[in-house]
């Protein structure tokens, strides 16, 4: 929007009320003071000063949300699908899913997640524990992670190798995300007898 530029009333003439009102509150904004009603922009700023950070409303240009959990969360094959391709084979992990409201069309949305995962199954075993991220209900094919086997049979006992526990993380970036509610969740497929999760966080950060 350009600077206000009001047409002067012709000197020595009888003033027309409409002409004066047009200068006050006309719809043709640059020729009227109506720009005061929310129409002022950078061009109206005295160039001797710059916009300061405290002029900008909190969360106006970027914002975010995070969810996390503490404590151990165990998964077991006893109550899970036996094959990965079953409907609902992947279950949402409590504490590692997020719903958030984007108040404008966001040019960029970043989702990041972190989780610690461990299991207790023999190296030679054929069971699987897989993590997969879903965004707005859609599987993100580049966000698939496997929890490795981490135990050996030693003298008849099962020995876990703790260094095989895993800290997994991931991220996705989405462009031109529509205004409104969105969701993301980390899901797990577990057909091992046990997998133990320690959730760190799921974060969403968006930029106007």
């Amino acid at each position: 929007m350009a600077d206000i530029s009001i047409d002067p009333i012709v000197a020595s003439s009888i003033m027309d009320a409409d002409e004066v009102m047009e200068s006050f509150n006309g719809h043709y904004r640059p020729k009227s003071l109506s720009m005061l009603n929310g129409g002022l922009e950078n061009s109206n700023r005295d160039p001797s000063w710059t916009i300061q950070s405290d002029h900008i409303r909190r969360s106006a240009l970027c914002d975010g949300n995070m969810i996390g959990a503490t404590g151990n969360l165990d998964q077991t094959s006893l109550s899970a699908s036996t094959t990965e391709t079953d409907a609902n084979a992947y279950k949402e992990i409590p504490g590692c899913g997020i719903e958030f409201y984007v108040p404008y069309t966001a040019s960029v949305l970043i989702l990041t997640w972190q989780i610690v995962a461990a299991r207790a199954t023999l190296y030679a075993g054929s069971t699987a524990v897989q993590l997969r991220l879903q965004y707005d209900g859609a599987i993100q094919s580049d966000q698939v992670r496997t929890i490795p086997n981490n135990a050996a049979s030693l003298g008849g006992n099962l020995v876990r190798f703790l260094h095989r526990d895993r800290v997994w993380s991931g991220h996705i970036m989405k462009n031109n995300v529509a205004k409104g509610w969105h969701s993301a969740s980390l899901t797990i497929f577990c057909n091992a007898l046990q997998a133990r999760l320690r959730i760190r966080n799921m974060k969403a950060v968006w930029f106007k």
Partner: protein
Amino acid sequence: MADKFSPISTGDEATSTKVNSLFSSLQTEVNALPITAIQPGSLHDVHLPSLVVDSGTDSITGTHNYTNQYPGWGNSGIVIGANATGWSIINTGGTAGSGTDLEVDLGADYVLTGSNSGLLIMFNTNVVALDDTTTATGTSSLYGLFKIQVYANGAWRSIQRTERYTTAEMQYGPGISGTLASAQASLSKDVPIRTFISNADLATPGHVVRKVRVLTCISRKLAAAGSTQLSLKETNLSVMLIHASLQESL
């Protein structure tokens, strides 16, 4: 605001000269707003441009394998071909480089000065295996390495501080069932890199950036040449050029 405004007094003539003067004073005032006219927190998303200048993302979902060997700290030489000394560009075709590079091209040159503060870079890869197929003594020491490169002023420049290592966690000894290879095959490790590239990172060759990619290779201490392989699967790279400089001059 409008501290110079003087209304027409009751009973005075409302001449065009007086009305023009009133409008003119208001116009002058509004067209050069002082800093005190802007209330703290009054500017929001409809008033201000995006902080994001440009962004891009790329990913690979299938398996891609690498065999080239670490050339040493600070050395960014790239080789195409198997079991050579040098880095490989992460590519859908692996070491051979026969596929598509994992790369974000912003599509334009951006100068990292002023309000274009820098590039936020995020990288993740799923290391599915890091194998030594011949060593049988448990003395092999294997690492997978990664680092970010930025295309600046017409040349690829390594960001040395982004170099990351991950160990192969070789498994030997009593009780380890299965073959050596099968133990290693389930490595499944995460390698994340998060970094912010500012103009201070690109003093040489310059601050004009356009593209970002990632290099990888293997460091082997005792394994025989030609016996090692790094296998990656789900891998993604995201880049965002943002305004983030703070200029509090008043």
